[in-house]
């Protein structure tokens, strides 16, 4: 049984508009038998934070195309993406890419 996990979540580039316009969120994930990974975090966000139109944020069990995920200031591709095991106080950023000019 792992202890509860504190995370700092950030949303930007417009993704925050799906979360009441709030960019910074401190969340605590409940303790569970296995360590939390990103796939489980996304399911948790979908169930606990996304009020409406989850398809603007997710596609299947991952984020939709056009959202970059950053774990502690690095592209999540460098960290194992969905399989990354979250550590207490990790900083996870979801940033919508911008196309305007």
């Amino acid at each position, binding site marked *: 049984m792992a202890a509860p996990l504190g995370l700092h979540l950030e949303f930007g580039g417009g993704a925050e508009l799906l979360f009441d316009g709030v960019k910074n969120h401190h969340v605590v994930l409940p303790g569970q038998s296995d360590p939390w990974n990103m796939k489980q975090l996304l399911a948790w966000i979908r169930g606990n934070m996304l009020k409406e139109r989850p398809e603007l944020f997710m596609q299947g069990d991952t984020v939709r195309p056009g959202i970059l995920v950053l774990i502690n*200031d690095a592209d999540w591709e460098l960290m194992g993406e969905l399989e990354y095991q979250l550590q207490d106080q990790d900083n996870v950023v979801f940033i919508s890419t911008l*196309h305007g*000019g």
Partner: protein
Amino acid sequence: PLKSNVTLSNDDIMRYSRQLILPELGVKGQVAISNVSVLVVGCGGLGCPLAQYLAAAGIGRLGLLDYDVVELSNLHRQVLHSEVTQGQPKALSAAQAISRLNSTVQCVPYHLQLSRDNAIQLIQQYDIVADCSDNVPTRYLVNDACVLAGKPLVSASALRMEGQLTVYNYRGGPCYRCLFPSPPPPETVTNCSDGGVLGVVPGIMGCLQALEVLKIASGQGSSFEQQLLMFDGQEGRFRSIRLRARQIECVVCGEKPTLTELQDYEQFCGSAATDKCRRLNLL
């Protein structure tokens, strides 16, 4: 092709004296800049400050591409245009303003839409490409054409009070498709017409983009190879992010590319190559 300078004229020495004395640049860097050509894709909120500072710095040739004409609603951020050039092609309006600032820069205005038919042939004529466009299909088109033509791509974007900047396809780094293999669903894309933009935010991003072009042009390399700079203007906060490496399985820059010629980008993205109407009506 651009003529190849090996020295600076006396006028050049006067004009660029304040930057020539920088050890990071010097005469050698200034000569290098004068031999470099840059294609600016989009003469809007990003392209205006970018073109302005590249011309001021003495870039050799500047291709200024935009299919659109100047409107009053552009002037809050597109600072090369003016009240009297309303209705004129942006490429021409920008070229006029640039030549007032530095007549020694070769300015080539292209009043046309970049497309799968002209992109490679245009981009091949330039050393560096700056993506200052305002829509998703054009961003994929510019990326693919840069990969196929082997040109570095300095890309910036802005919306509301935020901006992003990266250098793609440069010294073995990733391309836009390595990061974004699939386009965003059209209904998730907000453009400047819909979402708005504070004019000085693309100003900041276009200037930062110009700096990276100048660093590449003068042989200093870029700070944003495999790095993404994010700016939040409301919080006054910059953040630099380490990005993934070039992806082996990338369809355009990977080891076995399947995309070897340009495609239909409006169809691929499900949206039109403009920031004016969001959805392409797919019949």
